[in-house]
């Protein structure tokens, strides 16, 4: 399994669900970040010219993913940015620590092929699991 994401069709009705995968937790978080912005825009049309750093900490990895995606949604509205590149470093001591650099640019309705706005990440069917082969998988329902 490598880093990636899919949008399964019929698991939710009024919201959107994505499943993200990665060989490592960091890859999983990167894939989930990109999937989130693919919900909102054509990220292929976003230029990575503005850089933001994000630092987060949590004891549980699933809650850290919730916080990571919520932080990205916050930046989308508060800073008016869409991101396309996600470089994530994850370490586990007692807590999981995330240090990430994300790159994107201000939202431009004329250029970015805007789609549906992500209101929030829900806990509905939310899960982060390590598979038998050691890779990582998450299911995320995004409120639209």
């Amino acid at each position, binding site marked *: 399994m490598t880093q990636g994401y899919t*949008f*399964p*069709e*019929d*698991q*939710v*009705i*009024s*919201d*959107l*669900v994505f499943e993200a995968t990665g060989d490592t937790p960091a890859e999983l978080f990167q894939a989930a970040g990109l999937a989130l912005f693919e919900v*909102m*825009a054509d990220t292929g049309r976003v230029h990575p010219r503005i850089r933001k750093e994000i630092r987060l900490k949590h004891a549980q990895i699933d*809650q850290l993913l*919730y*916080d990571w995606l*919520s932080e990205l*949604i*916050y930046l*989308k*509205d*508060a800073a*008016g940015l*869409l991101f396309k590149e996600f470089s994530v470093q994850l370490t586990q001591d007692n807590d999981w620590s995330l240090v990430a650099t994300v790159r994107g640019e201000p*939202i431009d*309705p004329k250029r970015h*092929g*805007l*789609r*549906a*706005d992500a*209101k*929030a*990440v*829900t*806990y*509905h069917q*939310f899960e982060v699991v390590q598979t038998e082969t050691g890779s990582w998988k998450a299911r995320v*329902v995004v*409120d*639209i």
Partner: protein
Amino acid sequence: MQVNKITDYVWEIPPSEKEGMLVPARIYATEKLMKEMDAGVIEQITNVACLPGIQKYALCMPDGHWGYGFPIGGVAAFSLQDGVISPGGIGFDINCGMRLIRTDLTLADVQPRLKDLLNVLFNKVPAGVGAKGLVKIERKEMAEVMTRGVNWCIKKGYGWAQDRDRIEGGGCLPGGDPSKVSSQAVERGIGQLGTLGSGNHYLEIQVASNENIYDEKLARAVGIFGRDQIVIMVHCGSRGFGHQIATDYLRVFDSAMKKYGITVRDRQLGCAPFRSPEGQDYYSAMACAANMAFANRQVITHRIREAFSQVFNEDAERLGLETIYDVAHNVAKVETYEINGKPTELLVHRKGSTRSFGPGRTEVPTLYRDWGQPVIVGGSMETGSYLCVGTQKAETETFGSTMHGAGRTMSRAAAKRMIRGTDLQRRMEENGILVKAVSMSGLAEEAGSAYKDISEVVDTMDTVGVSKKVVRLKPIGNIKG
């Protein structure tokens, strides 16, 4: 799961069907709507029936469909003493709701200028991902929006004094406390006053024709005279501000549940006792978001008046652009109902459900108190919407609640695969509905075929006697995010 037919329109799942159910779950639907109802509704409404302090029934309206936590269309009332408050029973878009504005214009006046009108509205009411509003405010003023709602708008000239009397709760939910709101929520919402958002949110120009009026007396009472009269419907909520408040408090409740020994069947049903510090903090923050949403729809109303005034070169007052009513369909409110023969205050959660109070109830504005509270039911942009009024039966049967819209039947992902936004836009234009959308894929997700038959939904509650049809409204122009 065993579902018992109580009447032709009411279905019940008894508490014996799921461990932990404290009350039965009831779904309002015709046989056809019940057959089409997705399995997620039954799973979710029976989960709601397990929440501490729930009274009488966990209810789902006929537009119900699979949501997160509560189903969309879910209604539940909780004891203030030993019941809970749950963001999953309100939704991320706190006080998402509908506003309906009348005009003295007719289709003949508007049709020749419809394209111009939509272009002006599209510029004045920003929509779509990341859209910023044209109202710039400082943090201090944002705090006033949070506590005073529409009163702030009227003070600043974004509304008429009479608007306040035609909004649920006067456009201000008491109890808002800005100190319970995170700075992240303020940063997300401060630039968004007067914006539509995306998803199923819209601004629509509609027509009220004589043949679509079901009750002429009631229609006249709310300012609808028919004869192809133009009205405007707005569907939106508290934008990123409310979404962030819900996100913040879901985290809080995730931990609080352990503290209070509450377990739930779906993590999205995270909750806390209403009387606990966490429950009270969330209620205060939720009220701030509800007030921001009332203010948002008020600023949009102001922009609509400007747009009509500009296009028709006439004052909005002279064009008769009066608010008919404004309803919240994602909110929790303290309301009084008779329980065991005694008037009792309960916390009623409505998630995709509209309050439907009947004549005489003091919460209904004086203007409408003899008739019942207007209920605005937004349909899909292809199939039309309804204006109804509430009834006294709603107060005894559904905690004063009825449907809020048509209700989805098709997932967004499936709709996008099956329908192209540009094809839909062309088809709608052929059918006399002009659409301006920020996102073509977003437009495809909102096709009429992705929704239930709104007439069957509205007729269900009309037949049951919980809300009464006044007029069906046909769309001719739509703005979407």
